[in-house]
């Protein structure tokens, strides 16, 4: 019963940690706008955490540049299980217009398993909310598989 409770609440309070891997700030602004009074994501329990140790969902924006790659991977590795990785916008999925640049190491899926892709350049806040909701479902499943 306790385990059930935990699994239920796992789906009700996902905390985000946002990593900007060389983004153009478009997606970052959209992600912030998800938390504004207009699309108040806190009503779904979402919250921006200050440290990866507190986070459940890691949101990566931007083509993963060579500079940011080790930092991104380190920060992701410091998120406690169960965790869920969401790529936001086209850049982390493919490099988008920056593809093939000498300084881009992406896409992210080459290095870690990405759970949810949110396409769009930049995605609409509604799309972001969809993606985060999907990630929350995945979190619950992962929690169910834990012990």
């Amino acid at each position, binding site marked *: 019963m306790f385990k059930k409770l935990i699994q239920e609440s796992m789906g009700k309070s996902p905390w985000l940690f946002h*990593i900007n891997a060389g983004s153009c700030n478009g997606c970052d602004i959209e992600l912030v706008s998800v938390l504004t009074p207009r699309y108040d994501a806190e009503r779904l329990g979402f919250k921006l955490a200050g440290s990866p140790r507190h986070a459940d969902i890691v949101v990566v924006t931007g083509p993963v540049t060579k500079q940011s790659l080790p930092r991104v991977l380190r920060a992701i590795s410091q998120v406690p299980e169960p965790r869920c990785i969401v790529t936001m916008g086209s850049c982390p999925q493919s490099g988008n217009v920056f593809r093939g640049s000498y300084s881009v190491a992406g896409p992210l899926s080459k290095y870690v398993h990405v759970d949810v892709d949110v396409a769009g350049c930049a995605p609409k806040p509604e799309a972001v909310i969809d993606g985060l909701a999907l990630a929350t479902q995945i979190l619950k499943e992962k929690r169910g598989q834990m*012990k």
Partner: protein
Amino acid sequence: MSPVINALSYQHFPIYAIMVLFLGAFLIAVFGRNRTARNVLALLSITASLAFILALIRPVMLGGEIIAYWLGGRVPAGGYAIGIALEVDALSLFFALIVAVAVFVSGVYSIQYMRHDDNEREYYTLFLMLAGGVMGLVLSGDLFNMFIMVEVLTFAAVALTAFRNTATGALEAAFKYLVVGCIGSTCILVGTAMLYAQAHTLNLAQLAQLLPGNLNTATKVAFALLFVGFGTKAFIVPFHPLAADAHGAAPASISVMISGVLTKSGIYGIIRLTYFLFQTMNLGTMQFLLVFVGSLSMFICVTMALAQHDFKRLLAFHSISQIGYVLTAVGLCTALGVSAGLYHAMNHTLFKGLLFLAAGAVLHETGTTDLGKLGGLSKKMPHTTVLFLIGAFSISGIPPFNGFASKWMVYQATYQKAVESGNIGFLLVTIIALVTSVLTLASFVKVSQSVFFGQLPKELEHVKEVSFGMRLAMGIFALLCILTGLFPGLVTSYITEPAARAVFSVAQYISAMGFDASGVAAESVVSFAHVGVWEPISWLLILCIALLAITIVAVASKYDNVSQRSGEAVDTKYELFYGGEAQEFSQVGGGDLFWGFKHNWRGYFDFMYRLHSGVVNDYALWAVVDLALVMLFSLIVL
């Protein structure tokens, strides 16, 4: 009765307690070449003196008896005391108890702590002379003896301060101490001489009988001289910079003696002076003097401590700040106040000794006490860390440790005094005391962050836990801290209240020496009633129950199921979060940790920095100015 039996009667114990220490010093100086002999002799003498003092508790503390002991049986002739006298009332015994315990523990600590130094023989000789000096001072019934003992302990302390004369600043500190200490001793000598010229006696009891009532200019000046002299021994403002230097330079075991024992001797002298010799404490102005000096020491020293970045200097400033508490409480001239003051004096010896020993342990293992160079020792020295935390919580008054119990009584004493006397000034004292306490906490948070927690510098990887002997010494202090904190009722009723009662029973003190106490008011009725309620045991019980319950719940919910790094393999998961950067050594320095506080007080702090120039001339000047002020004060007031 046979002389043997006679020699074993407790009447003789005070002189034994003094003599074993001096004898030990002498024997070590003679036979101390061999380490074992040295240690055995030292341990024997300090243990014996402790035993003698403990044996005196039952008759004196509980029995309320006052031991009057004339050396060589030279009882007063013709109404004037000629011979050397020891007079042990509860007050003397109380301080003797503090001294004996501190000396014992610090001696036990020294055996491990000093073994790497050379000329240990001189160390133990001086150490025991220091101990004997203080013991003699507090047990003496004779003003000139007190002066002699002051000289003995001062010079022993100076020599010990400069003991590690290879360390930077040791000689300088010793020199400063020597200069200002000599000013103090001279004051005491001159004051004694003037009193003798006026009253034709040096016996404390007789002085107490003769002096009050018929004061003239000479005796008033003598009062000022003695006050300043003993103030120098207690390092109260404006003599606190000496303490900082001396503690910083001396070995930790000696710092324990200086802060736990020497300062107490100064407090003892001031109590004897004001309550007994001149019996001026009923004057509001005299209370103002003590409370003012006490509050000043309290606040100035704690703020100075916040600014320190050396472990032992910080502790030194704190010891003066705590002495400020004691002086303030004693200066209230209420039974509760004196009892609280004495209680805090005892606690101060315990937790400050513990802290100094912890600092010594850190110094012994790492070779430095610079807060900037240390960090993360809790992984290497877990026991020392726990002991240090006990001391830190005690001094900053975290329940249920002893510091809280006594401070809490101090607050109540000051506040009650304020309410009874209707004087809003004492209210200010209460507030200062409370704020000082939280500032103390702040600076010990700083120490624990920058010495025991945080990150371990590369060059401290080899550090090990200190040897068992040193941990044992610290453990004794820590245990006493906890016990005196958990049973404040017992401590007050069996130890501090008899002493406080003795302070208010001057008549018995005089008549015990066979002088006529008719001139002195008999024991004023004293009440230790206070309004506060605090039951540490029940609190602890409830806390344990709650903690137990919470722990059970936590364990049930897999709280203990944590993941941590296995082996030494580098895994980014277990690195600290540096915004994604690779983990490197970065320790938040202790130097200016509380800038948020200091920023608003920068004017005050700049002023203080300019004041503490570190030039011995300035300090000597302060001493003279202080003397002049007190002299003026006593001439006007008394």
